[in-house]
């Protein structure tokens, strides 16, 4: 099988779902007859997570992923490469980046763009028929842990994995980031999730960490 994620020459790549097409200005490379898109660790927290040694993200390729805080869709496009036979529900609340997300999604049949507030799951629940094995969240909100917990409870399947990109500065600017991560972990545990991994994303994203939690 052709690996969807390729680490070569010190850089990360994903197998382009739409060969010949760029999403932003990423570099395209041909490897063994396949086209890959470079996945920058500085532009994508998920790529930074892999670069910093994260081990929990390895989809088979047919999963459905709920992606909260899709922004303009840079990372979403790579996730869409990875779950080529699956689907990404990409939720973004801000109209300006959503415009770019919409444009990207219209080229990729496995992306479902949804303009909605991640803290109001009623609005996007009708889009999902089943619970999903992976929930990914990257929203810079003070209550990001609570929002994540509520969504995990509702949409994450048994033993499903939740990836939470924590921006410590959004939760409390004055507190040391590591203390914030600890508080988030405690929050997640209180909501019935088991914390599997905490990967600090410095220096690619300052004061950010990826916290991976698993549903019971």
């Amino acid at each position, binding site marked *: 099988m052709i690996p969807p994620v390729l680490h070569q020459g010190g850089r990360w790549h994903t197998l382009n779902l739409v060969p010949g097409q760029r999403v932003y200005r990423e570099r395209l490379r041909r490897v063994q007859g396949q086209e890959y898109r470079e996945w920058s660790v500085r532009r994508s927290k998920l790529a930074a997570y892999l670069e910093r040694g994260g081990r929990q993200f390895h989809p088979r390729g047919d999963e459905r992923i709920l992606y909260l805080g899709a922004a303009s869709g840079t990372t979403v496009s790579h996730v869409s490469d990875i779950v080529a036979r699956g*689907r990404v529900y990409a939720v973004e609340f801000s109209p300006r980046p959503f415009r770019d997300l919409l444009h990207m*999604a219209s080229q990729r049949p*496995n992306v479902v763009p949804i*303009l909605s507030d991640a803290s109001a799951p009623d609005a996007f629940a009708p889009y999902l*028929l089943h619970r999903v094995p992976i929930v990914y969240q990257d929203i810079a909100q003070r209550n990001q842990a609570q929002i994540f917990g509520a969504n995990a409870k509702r949409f994450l399947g048994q033993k499903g994995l939740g990836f939470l990109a924590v921006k410590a500065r959004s939760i409390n600017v004055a507190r040391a980031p590591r203390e914030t991560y600890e508080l988030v972990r405690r929050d997640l545990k209180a909501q019935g999730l088991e914390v599997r991994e905490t990967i600090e994303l410095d220096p690619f994203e300052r004061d950010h960490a990826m916290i991976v939690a698993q549903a019971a």
Partner: protein
Amino acid sequence: MPVLVTKWFGVFLVEKGRVERESRFPADARAIADRLLKVRRGDVLEEERQLADARPEVVEARLRGLGDYQGKPRFFDLDIEEPDGKLLHEASILVGRDESRSASAERDRFVGQSVRALDELTKTFNTLVERVREWYGLHFPEALSQLTDPEAFVDQLAKDASREALRRRAPKIAGGESIGVDFSAPQLEAIQGFAGALAALHAERGRLEKLVAAEAASVAPTLSKVVGDLLAAKLIERAGSLERLAHLPSSTVQTLGAETSLFQHIKEHTKPPKHGLLFQHGLINTAPKWQRGRLSRVLAANALLAARIDHFGEGGVTRAEAILARLEAQAKRIKSSKPRTDRPRRNGGPALRRAQPPRRAVR
């Protein structure tokens, strides 16, 4: 009791985990998109009404009228085949396009962009005026101190940049030979052309300012009355939209636009900012320094009240007078107060205590 569950391709009546009855949407992206849009607006679908004849349990607040709502959102994994994903993809794009369009159609987004355009235009104009003054100063430095008004200066240069013309315009310019160097005709022309562009920029700025004021007055009439059109527009821009402004706490409105110093206060325990954008209001910037904090607090409270009336109310400006009267009464009390004299003064007012570190949030 059966539960009514709405999914993107139909409505289902579920009993003990099994679908008892269903009403599917037509297998057409536009038809599905229309229904999803209705759901997002909070409307009840025809299909939902049909299946709700026996008043089932409902799991969304939107469907409260159709049956028994426990207030507990739940998610249902339905044990049914999902139609082709292509349909969902296409429908979601259609929904996204419609919503994207209506989001940018909101008037306060226009206000936000035009305020930013105005701010940048002002900044640019000032920078360029500085440049043309320095530049022309090589030729005729005596004129600079007499023609201090930037608009008059660029207007005159644009029309005629010769020393004689400027002398006619401002007879007070010191007579005799200038200490500046002579400019050749092409050199003078270059400056004249540059000044012409600046004059045009200035005219554009005036037009834009009128437009911003008019937009603010129509989007937020009460707020505009209370703090002035331009400041109202700037507050809306800072908050992101009138809706967001209306939802902010008054203390945030008070320091809106002073984020740098607010965060410096939180992190480094410097003195907290008294005002942000609100400083531009006459009530604040003409007051003695030691009154500004309190004045800014009551101004923020009243401005916010006005913003909330504009956002949640019926429209119109009927309450503006009452708010202005209230603001005036509160301001009067503050203005008649005397500075505290029990501590050594600074800045013409009493020194503040050394700012206390903010209390740690208890969690």
